[in-house]
């Protein structure tokens, strides 16, 4: 039984392999179209079931004996004096999360087989779905920050792809971009966090970061924990990153929604609970957790009250609860938060999967404005506007960056291009005449190009007038000319008087 544990790497790999297989099938054209749906579904279900069975075996082992804990399999990357291992964390919390993710993934896949039937992009959807569940499994089971990060990124990419599933719709692609870029902010801090722990601790194993960090000052610990925290905030759509999650609803209903409702949205909280030892050492961050949790809860609460469609209401209520989880963490009750997380995930999965069916079953007039807002019209406006978080982000980040890039582009066009001399604006030659006349041979652009042109024309002149002329005409003329002289001398010498003189001179020289 224990040997199964060494095959733990199969658990996140199986869904990813399913993705690759479906992709190959699509490229080589053996699962396209409606006829390929059954095969695609079977592949996905098999992979998801197998990884669930593997997890259940490990669960059973953990139940009978104890959780295997940290597991180093083999080095993944060795360079210079550092080694990154393929390692897994298999403690109780990770196993519980993995079981949860695997189960929900399996159920979602099963649900989607019917739901996505005859939809455009059936295969594509399952590719992403499998990739996503593999990524989530990797996040919770990875034994070091790098592998967690790989899962983290894959989850980000697949959520980007899911949101933009109907890429022909403008809003879908725009929202996908927005969600992805917001996530990237968190990713940057994730990288900072494990870079810092790498520099200061020389290791990125979770075990080393969390339990063998005695040598670090509390400021260093705070920096590492703070960076991980920002990564978690972005992933879990906590304040101030909350707006992206509402945009995530663009994805195909409800299969993608359950990921934002029940799985990925909890990844951040999972990370926070995972790095609990750091918060315990550096307690200064706990009040921050409380504050952010509270803000998120309030944001989610008020915004959800004014939503008019079921999915938005649900997603903001998810935000509320995730905020509460962070709040509970901030109080130091990490254990409770992890229970909360798991229960919430199960509940939301059910709710999101059911929501569209409920919508079909009953129709209801637009719900009335909540009585709470009766005396607080400004709060109502703020809630409707989702507290202007998007606008603030636009104003604070997007606009300045846009302006900066415009300036950079101007600089590039007006200064750099002129000096370096890229070919002028790509001209499209439309007619044959133009093609013949607009010869650009030997013409340079920009300062460097002009210098080159000038130098080349000088050398060309040199070549034409000195080297080639010498070869073509003058050299031969010169030889003719010299030949004439030699002939003359020869004729002179053949005359007796000069021959005599020559003989006499020879004698004089010899004597």
């Amino acid at each position: 039984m224990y040997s199964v544990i060494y095959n733990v790497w199969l658990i996140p790999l199986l869904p990813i392999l399913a993705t690759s297989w479906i992709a190959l099938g699509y490229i080589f054209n053996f699962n396209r179209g409606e006829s390929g749906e059954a095969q695609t579904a079977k592949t996905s279900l098999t992979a998801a079931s197998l990884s669930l069975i593997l997890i259940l075996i490990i669960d059973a082992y953990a139940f009978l004996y104890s959780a295997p804990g940290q597991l180093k399999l083999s080095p993944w990357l060795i360079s210079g004096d550092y080694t990154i291992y393929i390692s897994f964390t298999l403690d109780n919390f990770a196993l519980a999360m993995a079981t949860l993710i695997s189960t929900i993934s399996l159920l979602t896949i099963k649900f989607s087989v019917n739901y996505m039937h005859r939809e455009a992009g059936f295969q594509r959807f399952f590719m992403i779905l499998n990739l996503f569940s593999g990524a989530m499994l990797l996040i919770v089971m990875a034994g070091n920050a790098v592998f967690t990060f790989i899962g983290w990124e894959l989850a980000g990419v697949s959520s980007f792809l899911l949101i933009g599933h109907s890429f022909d719709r403008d809003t879908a692609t725009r929202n996908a971009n927005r969600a992805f870029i917001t996530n990237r902010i968190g990713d940057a801090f994730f990288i900072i966090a494990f870079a810092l722990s790498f520099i200061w601790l020389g290791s990125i194993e979770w075990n080393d970061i969390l339990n063998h960090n005695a040598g670090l000052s509390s400021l260093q610990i705070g920096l590492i924990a703070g960076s991980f925290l920002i990564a978690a905030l972005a992933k879990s759509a906590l304040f101030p990153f909350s707006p992206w999650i509402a945009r995530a609803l663009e994805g195909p209903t409800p299969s993608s929604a359950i990921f934002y409702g029940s799985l990925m949205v909890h990844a951040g909280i999972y990370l926070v609970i995972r790095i609990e030892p750091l918060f315990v050492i550096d307690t200064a961050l706990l009040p921050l957790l409380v504050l952010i949790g509270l803000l998120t809860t309030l944001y989610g609460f008020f915004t959800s009250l004014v939503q008019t469609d079921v999915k938005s209401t649900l997603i903001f209520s998810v935000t509320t609860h995730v905020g509460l989880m962070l709040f509970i963490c901030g109080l130091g009750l990490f254990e409770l938060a992890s229970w909360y997380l798991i229960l919430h995930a199960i509940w939301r999965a059910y709710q999101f999967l059911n929501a569209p069916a409920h919508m079909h079953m009953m129709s209801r007039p637009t719900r009335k404005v909540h009585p709470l807002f009766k005396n607080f019209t400004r709060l109502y406006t703020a809630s409707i506007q989702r507290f202007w978080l998007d606008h603030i982000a636009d104003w604070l980040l997007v606009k300045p960056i846009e302006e900066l890039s415009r300036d950079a582009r101007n600089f590039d066009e007006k200064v750099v291009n002129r000096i370096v001399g890229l070919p002028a604006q790509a001209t499209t030659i439309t007619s044959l005449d133009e093609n013949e006349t607009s010869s650009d041979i030997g013409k340079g652009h920009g300062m460097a190009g002009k210098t080159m042109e000038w130098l080349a024309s000088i050398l060309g002149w040199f070549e034409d007038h000195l080297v080639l002329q010498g070869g073509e005409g003058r050299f031969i003329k010169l030889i003719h000319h010299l030949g004439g002289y030699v002939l003359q001398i020869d004729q002179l010498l053949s005359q007796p008087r000069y021959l005599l003189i020559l003989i006499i001179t020879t004698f004089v020289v010899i004597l």
Partner: protein
Amino acid sequence: MHDLTILLLLPVMGAVSIALVPAQHDKIIRKLALLASFAALLYSWSLLYSFDTTTAQLQFYETTVWNTRLGTSYSLGIDGISLPMVLMATLLSLISILASASIKNHRKGYYLLVLLLESAMLGVFMAQDWSLFYVFWELTLIPLFFLIDHWGGEKRHTAALNFVLYTMGGSVFMLISILVLFDSTPEHSFAMSDMMARARELPHNTQVLLFLGFLIGFGVKMPIFPLHGWLPLAHVEAPSPISILLSGVLLKMGSYGLIRAATTLPEAIISLQNLLATLAMFSLIYGGLLAWRQSDLKKMIAYSSVSHMGVVLLGIATLNIVGLTGAVLQMVAHGFVAAATFLLIGLLYERTHTRDINHYCSLVRVNPRFAFFTTMAFIAAVGMPGTAGFVAEFHALIGGYERWGWIVVILSLGVLISAAYAIRTIGRLFTGPVQCQIQQITDLRKTEMLAASVLTAGFLFIGFFPAPILNIMSASLNELSNVFAVRF
């Protein structure tokens, strides 16, 4: 009979048998020529099996005294430097004969001369006696003169005459040097090894003067600026298959001779090292810029040859193992690349009767094979990583850096310029409207594709796996660089 004599005689036998066939059987004549050059190719490549890469000694050496009173001898031999040249010569000869299908008039004379030329080229690379070397050197001129003069383009007479005059003019200086060397050897022997031993004992100034003689002789052929006056005209006017041989093999004779002369007179080349490097870098830039100015494709490649041979000269001038490796490797690389470009441009010219780059656009849409191979050839001409030119230029760059430091950045500048004209040409092939004249032309035929793919595979193979060819050269180049290393 000895291996190398057989190799030398194979094309000659082909030529003799062609001479015996009546001129009207021109299909038989072409087949005979193909057969002879293919036999020579197989024979030369089979030498690889018995070639010992661990020693710098001459291999397959044979010597027979020719004229006791003069001290001349018929001695042939190859080492790690001449073997790649011999292999190149036989390969490119076959390819040039393959590409000669369009030569319709006086086929008999044409193939006869090409085979004689092949034999003479092989002789140059295998000769181990300066007199024999000189004989073969001059012998290449005769077939070439007629090939250009008879089957060339419009200005072929001028081109042929010009070519011969230039080479002969250079050879005179080389001959004087050889004779002075001969005179100074007490044994009165022309054998390269004897001359080498004696020449190294000569006073320094004499050595320098002798080396200058060689430099002029070989510099014309290579060509080194300002002795390249014959090259643009000859390359443009020569029929395309002959252009392949001209730039692929004939130019290498110059640099090969220069390496031999450097071995003979090491002190001289050490004191002229900086002059050579300056000439090399100037040739590099000069050739590149002029190539960039040309709208005639053949002329462009001709000038790019000047630029590429600058890299060879630079490699030789470094006099260290890395640079010399770069030089010999560049000789091989340029052989492949120049042959490929001339082959393709020649075949295009056959079909369109224009070499003006402005007349070609969107070739890829009608003639994808042409466009593919031409693109590959131009990419290789730039020396992109993954092609033979990259490995060679990289070696030359490192060797040059060891000797002169940052000045060799000029080499990179040369590469940049070559990129400018190569990319422009590639751009022409892929953009613009489709011209109706070009629409009529047929794509590469099977034999032509075979020739182009062999060359493309050649420079790609060396680009990705340079180890085998480096292995062939390493022992000889090691010894060569030691000759200079002990004198610094």
